[in-house]
């Protein structure tokens, strides 16, 4: 099938073209940018925000927003470390149980956010922001402000064991991207996200249980936040009440830059993946080409605006809010 150079096709591929353009730009200034080791560094830095972005993509596709990720990741990371240490402190000695346990915790936390949103009829923006604060507060409460460290070499193999030059957790993240893509395209739940995002009343009239879809969406996002927490611990060897800090900005920016529309129904998992890579390529590239640090924040902002302009079809929107 020959692909036509239509407006739709350009917009669909725009995020990927932006990513390609950035890579070419940075590589032209400093060829070391394209070295395999640097690509591995970018991939590694992208791994935790990638998981958060996948989770929040489902919510944004539904036309809602989830801002609870920082609290959710911090709480999951702290609980994961504490459970891991309680269960023997080594993956071989039964501490692996902490992994399924924390995934359940994440699902529960997300479900709770969904309940606050759906049952108490609070807009998802406010409900999730508040739940994020609850998560951070709970993380402070269980740690008392201290750092919890994990020194298990087997668990840290996620970071230190390399296959084809990339750390193990990058490969696992790639598998999880496939899983998210499968959920989005080949399950009823995934299709229902789009139905709700495209038009809630229409979806309701067609027999979709909108409340249940929303709850499932938030719980699913929670599971991905828990995975992000595990990766974050694997990468840093520690958890504290600020482990999730900055993830909100990175994840939301990435998703939007990747071409997922904040008004719902448009874009998906693959957009989020490209978006996370764009944001991390910018972050890494600015240091690698030696841009003075006082210009970096400003340039990041400009590049984000350019990326959004290029990668979303704003002709469909009557007004921006």
């Amino acid at each position, binding site marked *: 099938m020959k692909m036509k150079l239509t407006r739709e096709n350009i917009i669909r591929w725009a995020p990927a073209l932006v990513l390609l353009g950035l890579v070419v730009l940075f590589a032209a200034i400093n060829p070391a940018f394209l070295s395999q080791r640097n690509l591995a560094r970018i991939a590694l830095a992208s791994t935790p925000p990638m998981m958060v972005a996948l989770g929040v993509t489902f919510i944004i596709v539904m036309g809602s927003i989830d801002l609870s990720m920082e609290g959710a990741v911090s709480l999951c990371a702290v609980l994961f470390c504490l459970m891991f240490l309680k269960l023997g402190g080594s993956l071989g000695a039964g501490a692996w149980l902490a992994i399924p346990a924390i995934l359940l915790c994440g699902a529960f936390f997300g479900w709770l956010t969904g309940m606050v949103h759906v049952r108490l009829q609070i807009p998802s923006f406010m409900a999730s922001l508040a739940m994020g604060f609850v998560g951070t507060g709970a993380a402070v409460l269980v740690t008392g*402000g201290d750092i919890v460290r994990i020194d298990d070499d087997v668990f*840290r193999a996620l970071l*230190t064991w390399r296959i084809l030059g990339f750390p193990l957790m990058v490969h696992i993240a790639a598998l999880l991207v496939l899983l998210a893509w499968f959920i989005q395209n080949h399950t009823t739940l995934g299709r229902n996200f789009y139905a709700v995002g495209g038009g809630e009343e229409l979806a309701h009239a067609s027999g979709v249980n909108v409340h249940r879809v929303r709850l499932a969406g938030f719980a699913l996002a929670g599971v991905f936040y828990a995975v992000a927490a595990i990766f974050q611990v694997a990468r840093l060897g520690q958890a504290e009440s600020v482990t999730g800090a900055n993830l909100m900005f990175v994840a939301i920016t990435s998703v939007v830059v990747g071409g997922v529309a904040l008004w719902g129904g448009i874009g998906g998992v693959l957009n989020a993946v490209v978006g996370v890579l764009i944001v991390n390529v910018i972050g890494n590239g600015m240091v690698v080409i030696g841009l003075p640090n006082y210009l970096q924040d400003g340039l990041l902002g400009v590049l984000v605006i350019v990326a959004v302009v290029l990668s979303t079809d704003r002709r469909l929107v009557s007004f921006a809010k």
Partner: protein
Amino acid sequence: MSTFIKDYIDREVITRRKLLLAGAAGMATLAVPAVFGRGQARAALTDPAIAWSYRDRASAYWNAVVSGGEAFVESIGRSKSDMVNLISEGSSEKSLSDIKAFLSKTGGNCAIACDPNDSPNARPIVEAVQAAGGYISTIWNKTDDLHPWDFGDNYVSHMTWSDEQPSEQTARILFEAMGGKGGVVHLGGIAANNPAVERLAGLQNALKDFPDIELLDAQPADWDTTKAAELMSSFLTRYGDRITGVHCAADNIAYGVIEALRAEGITDMPIVAYDGNPEAVKLVMDGQLLATVFTNPYWGGGISAALAYHAAIGTFKPSEEPHEHREFYGPTVLITQKDAAEFKAQYLDATPEYDWTDFWGPSNGQIQYR
């Protein structure tokens, strides 16, 4: 949706009105004791109430400060709960209004230790305390033109920490471990933060004596472990093997650096840090860090409360003390691989017993302004 917004606005308008009324009432109650209190030369107070005003207790640093304050309160035979916690949550306005409320509640019969949260906030706080006849010691934040000796006895003391000298010492330890040559990168705090500026300045001072060491790059990592890990790996791409040493502005940054290097299989890079957190001390003992610096927040918290309290009950008269007893630097303890185990035993495994009437023993000289 529109009714939600309308309800919300209605509710906010009401709470704003309530707030203004409450504020007006608060000012009135504050004015009353001030009218009667001014001009009364109160020599000393009996049994003053004690308060600590600080950001919040979530961080290890402030937790240590407040624990020190509580230890002092217990040392004078009161219970922990007799120390009132005024938590500013990082808001200067809340810090000031809480202190004013505490002053009017106690009628000025009080001793306060306080971090004013930002420099300009110190003046209104100190003026309010003086007007009410209370006593106050501050730490960290005040403007350079505000001095305790301009306020008679009521503004007892100000303590801060100079990070330039200790940061220079850690840099020298780092450079010697690098064999006096090679390339160093600095990962700093939030660029405009005073400690971040001083800790970088310390590194630059040390560089002058080591002409064969090149500062490859210095960028802010915002006191953040994750950001530090990402910045360090980007540095590795840009400078590669030219990096032979890493100077970190904080322990939290060093944790990220160590992990970024671990991901690359680099385990023998010389690294120095700052803050003396328990985890960092352990890393020094394990040989993963060369040095860190401890500022003894526990002592700082206890002695600030002690200074305000003892001035209030008349143990000493602040206006008769020399300037270096009213504005001084807090202690800094350099922790290296030689003394880390000893430090841990002394400060971390056991809480040292301090003599809370030895006000200036561990302090570090009069504050110098540039």
